[in-house]
């Protein structure tokens, strides 16, 4: 059978260029494995979170309000369409841990019933036990906080209430679906387990402690019919109307849920884009390699066609080999992918402490990966194969393939003259555009892959630096639970070790323009503030003006602000029970910072605007930031905490460490990508160089018969490869840079871009490392190729036509 003979030829061709096909297969397998692995992890993660929210009966909405009698809950339960309703008292309070005396923190105390299970937002017990009816001095800690401080059942925490210290004993560590990602509020999305923890205690105990027995200030509810949620929310708010309810918060807007969702979405973007990048590189190199193979086989093609094979037979013939390789590679890649999915899923679930992990092989993802792998190869092979089929037999049969010679670039004419042996590599670079191009594709792809992962890490690092340098341009900052005055600042300035101190008035506010509202932190700063330096998008510093305010990037985009706009600012309803007045503030400028939910104006201006509503004392401040001599850090921090009404004092260094831990999970993912990137880059370059050398066996054999030594040939080929590699670096580095920018934009959800406006920032060392890696890989790749040339049988090789 003619067909089977051609198939046999296809297989032999495969065997002949085994090295390159192995490299291609390797690339495709890696891409497929990565696609299946990463996307399965995403699916596992998404399903696990959904399942966990489901099993713990996560709320559909919540409403906060001022004190209401607990019995309103029964009225809410009568609303048609409502499912479960839980009412509770929640109080943020100063907190102390036995092991860390003096380290003040904020504890969020949540009252829960002890005689019945919760009907919504249930707790998952990780350690110890839940609360019983007689547990008056018992408390449950949320897992993140417990883990951070290494707290376990049996240990004590002390709550401070109006100067009275009340000890509680930890009986259990729990996870709450409301705090899977611990977020304190919409305004403070980055939580610090160092200083903020959530804990649960008996509602009766909490009520007695705060004189709020039988009262609630929050309800959390589920609905029985999702389609009627908005009407249920509206009805619930109406039922709570006498108690000044805030706007109901739907499940999607719950800050913790939202953050987590964003993380999962971000992960999804990576899980798709990175493997696609890999496969894209595979397509590029498979395609260039096959184009060259077609070129070297043109006489064979001509022969086949002149024997009477149809165009399509030739097309299929050239597709066969690659698709075979693609199939085998995709299947082995899928095995690796399933394994990778399992390992990575376990790793991530453990890292993220997902309450109910659901780790199973995702067969549809696997199938998809295999199909994508085969399609990748078919796509890559299609164009060269069609080109092969299209060669007119007469042209293909010509003894010497039309060379690119005179028609190609003649750049080499300007190159320095010297020994011809040394000039051959130079002119080969310019006179073999096909070969040069394919090597360039290899080098550029490899560079993109290598710069990508590391560039993302760099960007995260620089964003961290900016965030901490900008937002926390101070060493220590102390927050007060009640308004302080300038006197406090002056006291602090007089302490030894304090270089400079500044008071700030910070309040959460609602900002409204047109129909849009956004919650953000309004910062009243001193003129010419040294510790809260603001910069614009170009990094130039900006001053807070005498009138109007500077808005952060998130507000700018959310409220669609332009310079000179008037924004209506009002206090959140919770702070001012009586209907609060909205104050117009003019947009005087925009600043750039990593967390864009901040607005800055002069402290004096802020005081003037809100003095009446808040009954502010003169020169009011809520926090003091200070620059401290490093030797005095601990000392100053302790003294700050001893000040009356001091809530928490944060040291910049520990904040940095904490934020760093937060991005650690995504860092690890990026690290895995980096390893993959380097492996793939290696495969690509190795492949390219090997083909480069092997393709020229006949030419090298001729040189050897003339008496050119192996060493000279080696030098020639090495110089040529390194010249092309260097060219590749020149072209590739800017491309890689642009590529990372594009990727970064594609990988981020709009919300992420708005909240954490990271810029891509690639360190020079990243480029340097990638460049050196390219040169090293090229040199390494030369060795085995040259060895084959050295061992080649000259008598045999000269019988081949040199083409």
């Amino acid at each position, binding site marked *: 059978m003619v067909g089977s003979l051609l198939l046999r030829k296809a297989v032999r061709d495969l065997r002949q260029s085994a090295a390159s096909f192995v490299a291609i297969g390797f690339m495709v397998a890696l891409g497929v494995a990565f696609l299946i692995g990463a996307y399965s992890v995403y699916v596992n993660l998404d399903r696990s979170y959904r399942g966990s929210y489901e099993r713990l009966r996560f709320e559909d909405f919540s409403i906060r309000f001022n004190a209401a009698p607990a019995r309103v809950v029964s009225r809410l339960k009568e609303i048609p369409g409502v499912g479960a309703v839980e009412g509770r008292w929640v109080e943020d309070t100063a907190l102390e841990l036995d092991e860390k005396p003096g380290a003040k923190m904020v504890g969020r105390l949540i009252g829960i019933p002890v005689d019945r299970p919760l009907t919504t937002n249930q707790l998952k017990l990780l350690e110890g036990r839940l609360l019983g009816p007689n547990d008056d001095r018992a408390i449950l800690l949320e897992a993140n906080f417990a883990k951070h401080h290494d707290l376990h059942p049996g240990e004590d925490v002390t709550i401070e209430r109006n100067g009275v210290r009340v000890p509680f004993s930890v009986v259990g560590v729990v996870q709450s679906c409301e705090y899977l990602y611990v977020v304190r509020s919409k305004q403070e999305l980055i939580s610090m387990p160092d200083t903020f923890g959530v804990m649960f205690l008996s509602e009766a105990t909490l009520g007695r402690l705060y004189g709020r027995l039988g009262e609630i200030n929050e309800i959390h509810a589920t609905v029985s019919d999702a389609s009627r949620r908005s009407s249920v929310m509206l009805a619930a708010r109406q039922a709570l109307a006498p108690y000044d309810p805030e706007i109901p918060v739907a499940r999607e807007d719950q800050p913790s849920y939202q953050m987590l969702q964003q993380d999962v979405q971000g992960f999804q973007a990576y899980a798709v884009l990175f493997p696609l990048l890999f496969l894209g590189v595979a397509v590029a190199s498979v395609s260039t390699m096959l184009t060259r193979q077609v070129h070297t086989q043109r006489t064979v093609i001509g022969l086949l066609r002149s024997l009477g094979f149809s165009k399509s037979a030739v097309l299929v013939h050239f597709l066969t080999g690659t698709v075979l390789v693609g199939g085998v590679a995709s299947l082995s890649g899928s095995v690796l992918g399933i394994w990778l999915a399992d390992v990575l899923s376990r790793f991530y679930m453990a890292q993220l402490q997902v309450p109910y992990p659901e780790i199973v092989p995702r067969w549809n993802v696997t199938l998809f990966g295999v199909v994508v792998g085969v399609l990748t190869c078919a796509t890559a092979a299609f164009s060269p194969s069609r080109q092969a089929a299209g060669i007119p037999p007469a042209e293909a049969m010509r*003894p*010497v*393939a*039309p*060379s690119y*010679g*005179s028609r190609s670039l003649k750049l080499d004419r300007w190159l320095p003259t010297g*020994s*011809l*042996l040394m000039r*051959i590599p130079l*002119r*080969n670079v310019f*006179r*073999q555009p096909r070969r040069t191009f394919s090597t360039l594709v290899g080098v550029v792809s490899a560079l993109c892959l290598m710069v990508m992962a590391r560039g993302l890490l760099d960007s995260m690092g620089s964003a961290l630096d900016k965030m901490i340098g900008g937002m926390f341009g101070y060493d220590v900052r102390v927050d007060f639970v009640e308004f302080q005055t300038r006197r406090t600042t002056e006291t602090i300035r007089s302490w030894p070790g304090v270089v400079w101190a500044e008071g700030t008035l910070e309040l959460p506010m609602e900002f409204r323009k047109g129909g849009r509202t956004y919650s953000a932190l309004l910062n009243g700063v001193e003129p010419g503030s040294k510790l809260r330096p603001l910069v614009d998008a170009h990094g130039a510093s900006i001053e807070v003006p005498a009138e109007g305010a500077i808005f952060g990037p998130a507000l700018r985009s959310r409220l669609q602000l332009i310079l000179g706009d008037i924004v209506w600012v009002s206090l959140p309803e919770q702070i001012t029970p009586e209907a609060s007045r909205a104050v117009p503030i003019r947009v005087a400028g925009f600043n750039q910072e990593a967390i864009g939910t901040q607005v800055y104006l002069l402290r004096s201006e802020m005081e003037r605007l809100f003095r009446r509503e808040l009954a502010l004392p003169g020169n009011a401040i809520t926090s003091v930031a200070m620059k401290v001599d490093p030797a005095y850090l601990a000392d100053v921090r302790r003294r700050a905490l001893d000040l009356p009404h001091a809530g928490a004092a944060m040291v910049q260094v520990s904040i940095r460490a904490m934020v760093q831990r937060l991005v650690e999970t995504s860092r690890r993912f990026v690290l895995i990508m980096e390893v993959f990137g380097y492996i793939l880059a290696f495969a690509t370059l190795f492949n390219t160089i090997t083909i480069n050398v092997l393709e020229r066996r*006949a*030419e090298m*054999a*001729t*040189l*050897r*018969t*003339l*008496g*050119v*030594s*192996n060493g000279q040939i080696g030098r020639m080929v090495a110089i040529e490869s390194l010249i092309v590699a260097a060219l590749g670096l020149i072209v590739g580095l800017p491309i890689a840079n642009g590529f990372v920018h594009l990727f970064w934009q594609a990988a981020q959800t709009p919300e992420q871009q708005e909240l954490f406006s990271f810029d891509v920032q690639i360190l020079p060392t990243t480029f340097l490392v990638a460049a050196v890696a390219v040169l090293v890989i090229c040199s390494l790749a030369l060795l085995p190729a040259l060895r084959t040339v050295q061992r080649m*049988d*000259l*008598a045999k090789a*000269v*019988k*081949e*036509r*040199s*083409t």
Partner: protein
Amino acid sequence: MPGVESVIELDGVGKTYRTGSTEVHALVDANLTIDRGEFVVILGPSGCGKSTLMNLIGGLDRPTTGTVKVGGRDISKLDERGLTRFRRETVGFIFQFFNLVNTLTAYENVQLAAELVHHPMDIDALLEAVGLAGRGSHFPSELSGGEQQRVAIARALVKGAPVMLCDEPTGELDEETGRRVLSLLHQTTHDRGQTVLVVTHNAAIAAMADRIIRLRSGRILTDERNEHPVDPEEVRW
């Protein structure tokens, strides 16, 4: 013939190729002495071992048995480095398929070989001698088959190597061109006293040789002297 030194000496040379379990005896017990300045034609049917013999003399391959001496040196004992030097200084090859370097011009192809030796011949003069004056800047793809083969001849000659090995140099050429190429080869080598071995299975060429060696199935069948070599221009194909 007294006073004439031998350039090539083969003593009991055999070459056996092994492919899996089958053995091919490409050359069996070849004994041969060729003198300086001789123009030798090697005849024989396809597969009889002609190329094998040439490759052994040129140091592209090593014999399985026996010794090959060229210029008094036993090249079967040379290591890779020695063989490279030997090829560089002692032999010039011309192949059936020209084997030019495609990215180099005609001139540069010749220059490539010239740079390997201390005293190369003048490239322009050689190109003119092979009738390619003014074509030096052309690439192989811009030359006809015969022109390419003439470049190959120039490349083989430029080193001034004492031995020229030509394996079916006219195989790819038409009659007229083949004849011109051969007469060119004959003339240039004769003037310089170079020893030439030409492989062919075209008996007509033999008429111009000093000596005719016939091979059959790996064995030297006859080895005779041609007392009246014909001028190449008059050779009938």
